């Protein structure tokens, strides 16, 4: 495990940007945190525990992720809300090749247009990150959602 202070600081900063861009509804900036080769999945915890492969959102490459962003802007309609993510401290795990592997707990809140906030989802982020052009980027983000009884719908990424 590399585990240097610089690595931890960089990993922390990337998680912080990830949450911040979602909370500011800056989806393009969120998308740019992902490396050229990447995966983004949101999986219900019950499927993980039963060894089942089905995800709620399953983007196996960057183009699919780009399509999601575009469709959110242009095509899908969904309940308008603000999001707020609160993350726990980061746990660094053993590296996988040249990728830094880490996890963090998350709580994702949604606030509706009338200013009422509800917990939307809680769970765990499992991320792999790699340096690309001097910047740390996500090669894999798996969101394991404890809250798999999705309230209304899942539109904006978690």
């Amino acid at each position, binding site marked *: 495990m590399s585990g240097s202070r610089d690595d931890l*600081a960089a990993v*922390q900063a990337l998680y*912080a940007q990830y949450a*911040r861009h979602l909370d500011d509804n800056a989806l393009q900036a969120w998308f740019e945190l992902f490396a050229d080769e990447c995966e983004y999945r949101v999986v219900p915890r019950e499927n993980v525990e039963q060894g089942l492969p089905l995800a709620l959102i399953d983007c196996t490459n960057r183009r699919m992720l780009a399509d999601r962003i575009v469709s959110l802007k242009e095509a899908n309609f969904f309940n308008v809300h*603000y999001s*707020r993510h609160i993350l726990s401290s980061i746990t660094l795990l053993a590296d996988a090749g040249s990728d830094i592997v880490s996890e963090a707990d998350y709580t994702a809140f949604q*606030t509706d247009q009338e*200013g*009422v*906030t509800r917990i939307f989802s809680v769970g765990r982020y499992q991320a792999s990150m790699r340096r690309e052009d001097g910047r740390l980027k996500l090669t894999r983000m798996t969101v394991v959602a404890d809250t798999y009884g999705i309230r209304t719908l899942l539109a904006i990424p978690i």
Partner: protein
Amino acid sequence: MTDLELWFRFQQLQLAYTQAIDEDRLEDLPALFVENCEYSIVSRENVALGLPMPLFRCGNLDMLRDRIVSLRNANIFNPHYSRHVLSPVQAIDTSPGEARAATSFSLYQTTMAGLSSLFSVGCYDDTVVVGDGGRLRFRIKTVRVDTFSIPNLLSTPI
């Protein structure tokens, strides 16, 4: 002061702030601010509409002291415990003698019968002054609440 040290001290100041509220040590709050400080709570709705009306506004430290004394001696409000759960301080921007950062927060209130509920989520937008020995204090603290439909009433600071 290195970036990491600044981040660490900012983090400690933020926790000192939230813990003073959570542990009902409101009288410890003024020591975390400079005399000519500003402390406001604003709704995300008004920020989005460009409207100036705050929920709470202290234009100097005396007004914050007045608020605290009032809560102790004057105001009738629902007794509760507060509990903040924060994201790490993020996106630090520095200028000579000062630093500015954002921190996402969630705040729970627990009744005297032991029932907890989510009271507010949002983001702190803080500007601190770097004083002697690297000690940080708040000069501007703006609490932007996503949860702009206030449950019952807003008594203790967020």
